């Protein structure tokens, strides 16, 4: 019955690692961006208005 346990464990391990890496990437990326925004804010560079964002889309 347990002959294929290794494959099962490997699958779940790969899944766990992939998901963990994804979560780490998203969280880390978010932190880094927020840090940059704060640094820019500290340097006195502000968006011209909060309602009309300048960069995205248009």
């Amino acid at each position, binding site marked *: 019955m347990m002959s294929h346990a290794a494959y099962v464990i490997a*699958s779940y391990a790969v899944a766990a690692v992939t*998901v963990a890496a994804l979560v780490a990437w998203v969280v880390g990326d978010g932190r880094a961006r927020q840090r940059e925004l704060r640094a820019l804010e500290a340097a006195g560079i502000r968006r011209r208005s909060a309602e009309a964002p300048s960069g*995205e889309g248009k």
Partner: protein
Amino acid sequence: MSENSLAIRKFSDLANPTRFLALADRILPWLAALAALFFAAGLWLSFTTEGDYQQGETVRIMYVHVPSAWLSMMCYTVMAISALGTLVWRHPLADVSAKSAAPIGASFTFLALVTGSFWGKPMWGTWWVWDARLTSVFVLFLMYLGLIALNRAMEDPARSARVSAVLILVGFVNIPIIKFSVEWWNTLHQPASVMRLDGPTIDPEFLRPLLVMAVAFTLLFFTLHIAAMRNEIWRRRVTSLRRQAARHAGRETLAP
């Protein structure tokens, strides 16, 4: 025409990036908590239910394999809808959505391929066969990677958005091929057993953990996707602020 454009303006007004950020801040903790909850339940179910008499323990691989495979297709569909949003409605968030979904989709496709391979080795005796289902999923994986590379290669997001949107829509033909490949061609891969018109053919013993895991994965996807979109919006703000800083730099220091 004017009525139409007014409706569009309202629609995009609702989803303007600043509002989206506020909304994301409120939603994300709940979504993440819910996903964690479903994962806990799903994992518990998938390890307590019995193994299959034919496949033995390996049936448990299904509980991660099938949801990731399902997500790999759903993510591409989300990207295709976003691409439509970029090209047709010029929605400001559509291109953010498409761009941030690509790495997530690639990860889940990778997961589907790897877990499938771990399932195939004991069941079919080989890690990989070039049958229609597997090959088309692999092509999907390559497409994701290509889109990521394309997004990274272009500096200006406004310009890359259109180009990658066109590519995403062209690539969408692959999705129905993946979905129906098991029915159109007679292959090693087993046919669909959950999403069928005549109801699932799978034993409820396996169906329950599978569904819970599928819900958990879907919730995880949306959590990650919204968070990644938020990151992308922040990234673009940083970029535009920096450009602004570059424009102003040197003027005040040099002004007499």
